[in-house]
């Protein structure tokens, strides 16, 4: 696969992540008012109580693999903010993987917080891409954070993809509450 194909693949997964976040929020927010959404919410809650941690692990693993692909295969040099986001995303892979294996829902607030911090950095990085003068009026010679390596569908840059992954992990951590049918 070429870099264009991989970036398109990851961009589509980011769109799926964004749609999932919106869907989960809408179903949970609207469950109090609409009976249909209440039924969906019950089904989603049960599914997430069983698989939420595993899904979050998969999201973190794909995001990590994508990040490593961009830096190690495509040779897109990670900037300072990219490294900050990596430092939030990479540890989530073993942490969520182990928690999913052990069905340990106690990890939710910790993983959610780390993902939220990573997402906050992503938001700043996205802003910097749109407004390069936010941080400085000039490009450092050594790999400034304002470089846009990839842009898909007109808006999906690497920080937007990272933000999508962080947002989905946070959402999964919020809504993957343990139920009696689920694990402890």
């Amino acid at each position: 696969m070429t870099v264009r194909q991989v970036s398109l693949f990851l961009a589509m997964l980011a769109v799926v992540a964004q749609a999932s976040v919106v869907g989960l929020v809408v179903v949970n927010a609207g469950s109090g008012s609409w009976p249909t959404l209440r039924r969906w919410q019950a089904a989603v809650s049960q599914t997430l109580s069983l698989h939420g941690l595993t899904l979050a692990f998969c999201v973190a693993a794909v995001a990590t693999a994508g990040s490593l692909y961009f830096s190690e295969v495509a040779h897109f040099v990670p900037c300072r903010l990219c490294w900050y986001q990596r430092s939030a995303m990479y540890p989530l892979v073993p942490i969520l993987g182990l928690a999913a294996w052990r069905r340990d829902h106690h990890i939710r607030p910790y993983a959610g917080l780390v993902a939220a911090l990573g997402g906050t950095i992503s938001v700043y990085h996205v802003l910097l891409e749109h407004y390069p003068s936010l941080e400085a009026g000039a490009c450092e010679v050594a790999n400034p954070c304002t470089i846009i390596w990839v842009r898909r569908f007109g808006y999906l840059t690497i920080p937007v993809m990272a933000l999508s992954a962080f947002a989905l992990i946070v959402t999964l951590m919020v809504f993957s509450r343990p139920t009696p049918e689920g694990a402890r």
Partner: protein
Amino acid sequence: MTSTSSRTRSSRTSRLRASRRRRAPSGSRTVWIVAAAVVVAAAVIALVAGGGGHKTTAGSGSTGAIAEFRPVTVTGSPLAALPQSGPDPARGLPAPELRGQTFDGQPVTVTADGEPKVVLMVAHWCPHCQREVPLLAKYFQTNGLPKGARLVTIATDTNANSPNYPPSAWLARVGWPLPAMADDAGFTAARAYGLSAFPFFCAIDAQNKVVLRVTGELSTAQLEQVLNAARTGTVPPGSP
């Protein structure tokens, strides 16, 4: 003690196993089937629609008569790097002379020829340059090229793996009206002028002395101040 601990471990393992046995209700498999279908569909679409042929390694930088790197020779002492703040140590020093070529091989020089000039260094990947160059191009198209001082553009820090490559196509696309020198792969011209950030401006007076070096996006009014600094050999108050 040991047997108690072993019993506890065994009980925990049994609970985990039992818990995993419990997690295969009817809709459970559907989640993973849907997830796998989404990933496979995305992969298929990416393979079909993503096309091929994206350069991932630096090539020769040459396309026919156009080359993104051209040899540059420097005469004179290189300038110290422009500090982020404080006085510029290069002010008043002789500007290094540069002899290079445009992307298509035409000679471009920055020499002590008695003509005031402003050297502008840009990088194709730099978002600030991507905003500054079209702004200045439009200004020159409307107001004509600067008079009394020559503007010499140098495309440097060129990298085939970086966005907006190649610089020759970028400058042509934005209608840059001046010939641009292509720096070599060692960025000799940039090093000679102590470039520290992009875009980079260096005003040189008629005696070939450095009057002013500035980095960052400039408004057209600020560019006129830099050009005036080259023409007059003095830094006007309020200049960048």
